[in-house]
C-alpha cells in the first residue's frame, strides 16, 4: 500500500486543488461567487458520476472503456422509443434491459471467458455504439420529446433546481453517497478491495470473484446510463456523437488524478471527488479567462503529468512496492 504514506497522490492533488482554488479566487472576482462554484460542480457532475462508476471497477483491478457507449445508447433509445409513440414504461424497460444485458456481456467475457477487461470493453463499447448509431437512430442527436408528463418527471434528474442547487449536482451527491456506502459498509465493497489487491488470493479465500465481476460491470453500465439520462435531461437532447469524444479519457483522468491506482485495491470515492473538483476548477477558471478548448486540453494534460511526476518523486517505486499489473 504505497499510497498510505503522508504524501499520497491524493494529498498532492488536494494540495494542487487548494492552491489553484485560492489562486483563482484571488485573481478572478467572478470565480469566488457561490453561483459560479455551483456552476463549476454542475459542469463536471456527469464526469463525476462516470468517475464514480469507473472507480469501483478500477479498485477491483479492472477498467471499463465502454462507459461512454453505455452513457449514450440506452438513454437515447429511451427517448427514441418515446418519440416513436411507445409507452414510457416500455421504453424504460427496453433501455434498462439493454443496459443490463450489456453489463452482463462485459462481465461474462471478463469473468468467465477470461478476456482482459481492457480489450473486452474497448470492443464492446464500439459494438454498442455502432449498434445504436447504425440501427436504432437515424440521426446522431436524439431530442428529448416535449409531451408526456411522466417523461417530465424523469427529466427532473437533470433539470431545474432544488434548494437552489442544480439537479445534476444532487445526482452527483446521491451517487457519491451510494458508492461510499457500498464500498465502506457492505461486504460486497470489501470484496471489491480484496479482488483488486490480490485476485488469486481473493478467490482462494472463497470470495465469489466471477459473480462479483459480473455485478461490477453491470453496475458500471447502469451508472453510465444514469449519467446519460441526467445529461440528456439537462441538455434537452442527447448526441451519440459524444462516444467519439475524449470523455472516456477524462473519466480515467479524474480517477487516476485522484489517486486511485490502475493496479487496483486502493482509493475510494473521496479520490474521485478531489480529481473531479480539480478538473472542474481548471476548466471553469480557463473558461472565465476565455482560454480555448485546445489549450484547456493542454493544461489538463500538464496537470496530470505534474501530479504523476510529483508522486513518483515522493513515492519512488522499487521491487517491494511495485505491484503486478502496475501500468
Amino acid at each position, binding site marked *: 500500500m504505497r499510497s498510505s504514506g503522508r504524501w499520497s497522490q491524493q494529498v498532492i492533488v488536494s494540495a494542487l486543488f487548494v492552491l489553484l482554488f485560492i489562486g483563482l479566487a484571488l485573481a478572478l472576482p467572478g470565480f469566488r461567487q457561490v453561483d459560479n462554484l455551483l456552476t463549476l460542480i454542475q459542469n463536471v457532475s456527469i464526469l463525476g458520476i462516470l468517475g464514480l462508476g469507473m472507480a469501483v471497477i478500477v479498485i477491483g483491478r479492472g477498467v471499463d472503456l465502454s462507459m461512454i457507449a453505455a452513457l449514450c445508447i440506452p438513454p437515447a433509445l429511451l427517448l427514441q422509443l418515446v418519440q416513436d409513440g411507445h409507452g414510457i414504461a416500455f421504453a424504460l424497460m427496453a433501455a434498462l434491459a439493454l443496459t443490463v444485458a450489456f453489463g452482463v456481456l462485459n462481465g461474462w467475457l471478463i469473468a468467465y471467458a477470461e478476456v482482459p477487461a481492457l480489450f473486452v470493453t474497448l470492443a464492446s463499447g464500439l459494438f454498442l455504439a455502432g449498434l445504436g448509431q447504425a440501427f436504432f437512430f437515424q440521426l*446522431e442527436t436524439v431530442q428529448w420529446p416535449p409531451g408526456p408528463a411522466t417523461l417530465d418527471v424523469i427529466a427532473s434528474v437533470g433539470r431545474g433546481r432544488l434548494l437552489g442547487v442544480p439537479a445534476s449536482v444532487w445526482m452527483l451527491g446521491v451517487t457519491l453517497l451510494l458508492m461510499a456506502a457500498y464500498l465502506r459498509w457492505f461486504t460486497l465493497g470489501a470484496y471489491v478491495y480484496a479482488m483488486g489487491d490480490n485476485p488469486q488470493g481473493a478467490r482462494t479465500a472463497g470470495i465469489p470473484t466471477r459473480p462479483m465481476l459480473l455485478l461490477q460491470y453491470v453496475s458500471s453500465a447502469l451508472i453510465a446510463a444514469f449519467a446519460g439520462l441526467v445529461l440528456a435531461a439537462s441538455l434537452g437532447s442527447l*448526441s451519440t456523437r459524444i462516444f467519439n469524444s475524449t470523455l472516456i479519457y477524462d473519466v480515467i483522468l479524474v480517477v487516476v488524478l485522484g489517486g486511485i491506482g490502475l493496479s487496483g485495491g486502493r482509493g475510494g470515492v473521496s479520490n474521485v471527488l478531489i480529481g473531479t473538483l480539480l478538473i472542474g476548477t481548471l476548466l471553469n477558471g480557463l473558461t472565465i479567462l476565455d482560454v480555448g478548448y485546445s489549450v484547456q486540453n493542454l493544461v489538463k494534460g500538464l496537470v496530470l503529468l505534474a501530479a504523476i511526476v510529483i508522486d513518483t518523486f515522493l513515492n519512488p517505486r522499487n521491487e517491494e512496492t511495485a505491484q503486478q499489473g502496475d501500468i
Partner: protein
Amino acid sequence: MKTVITTLAAAAALLASGSAFAQGKGLDEPIRGGYKKALTGKTVAFLPGAMAMDLAQGWLKGLKTELEPQGIKVVVRDPNFNTQAGAQAFTQLIADKPDVIVVHNPDVSTYAKLIAQAEKAGILIVQINMASVTQSTAYVGTDWVDMGEVQAEAVVKACQGKSGKVAIVQGSFTAAASAYTVKGIENVFAKHPAIKIVSNQSADWQADKAKAITQTVLKQHPDLCGIIGFWDAMDQGTAAAVKEAGLTGKVFVATSGGGETKATCDMVKSGAYDLNVSYNVPNQGANLASTIKYLLSAGVKPGQLKGQMYTTLVPVTKANAGAEGTCWTLGK
C-alpha cells in the same frame, strides 16, 4: 436562276420537315444524345462528415433524386465523425476512381492534399458547405463570411441600448464554418465599437461543452446581450444554459443550421433560439446535383475550371418559423 434553285430547295426542305410535323413525329434533339452518354453509368461518391447528421441526409437525398434517374450511381462513404476514417475513405475512393467525389470537409486542412491528388487523378471534386484551403472544380454551399455578417447584424440590433457584451461559441477553430464565420462577425463588429466580445471559445461541436461554457460565461456576465453559436445541434446546449439561467428572451441567441424542422423551426418556435440562419439543405442538395450534371455533360476536366456556387441563407425567426416551406422535414 440561283434564287429559283434556293427557293426550290427551301420549299423541298419545308415540305420534308412539314410532313414530319404534319404526321406528329418527333425530332431528334441534337444535344440530348451527348448528354445521356456523358451521364449514364457515371459514379458519384459522397463523403460527408457523418451520415447521422440531418445535413448529410438532406444532401444525399438531393443527389439521389436528381442524379439516379439520369443513370448516375451514387455511393456513400460514412466516416461517422472520424477524420482519420474520412481520410482513409478518401484515399480508397481515389483508388476506386469514381467520376465525381462530393466531399464535406471536417476542417480546412485535413483533406487539402487528397483533394489535389484526386483532381490530378482525374476525379472531379465538388466540395459541399465546408471548403478546404485547396480550391477544386466546384464549391457548393454557404458563404460563411456572409453567415457571420447576417448573425452579427442581428445581434448588434438586439444589443442596442444594452450592455453590448457578446459571446461566441465556435465549433472547432479549424473548420471552414468556424474560421470564416468569425471573419464575418468581425467585419460587422468593427463598425460597432459599442459591441464587446467577452468570450470566444470552441465547444468542438458538442452540446454538453457548449452548455458548460455558456453557463460559466453567463455567471460572469449576467448582462450579456447576445450569443452567436455556430451550429444548431451544438447550440441546444447553449440554449439550455440560457434557459436554465432564466434569461430566455433577454439574451439574444443566434445560431445556424440546415433548416430541418425539429432542429430549426421547432426550436425557434419554442424560444430557444431567437435566430437560426438556415442554409436550406434541400436547396443545397439541388444545387449540388445541378453542378454535377452540368460538369459531367460539359465534359469538364478536373482542374480545368474552378468555381463557387454560394447558396442562399434563410434567416428563421419567430416571424417565419411557423410558415410552410421555411423548414424541411427529414423523411424516414
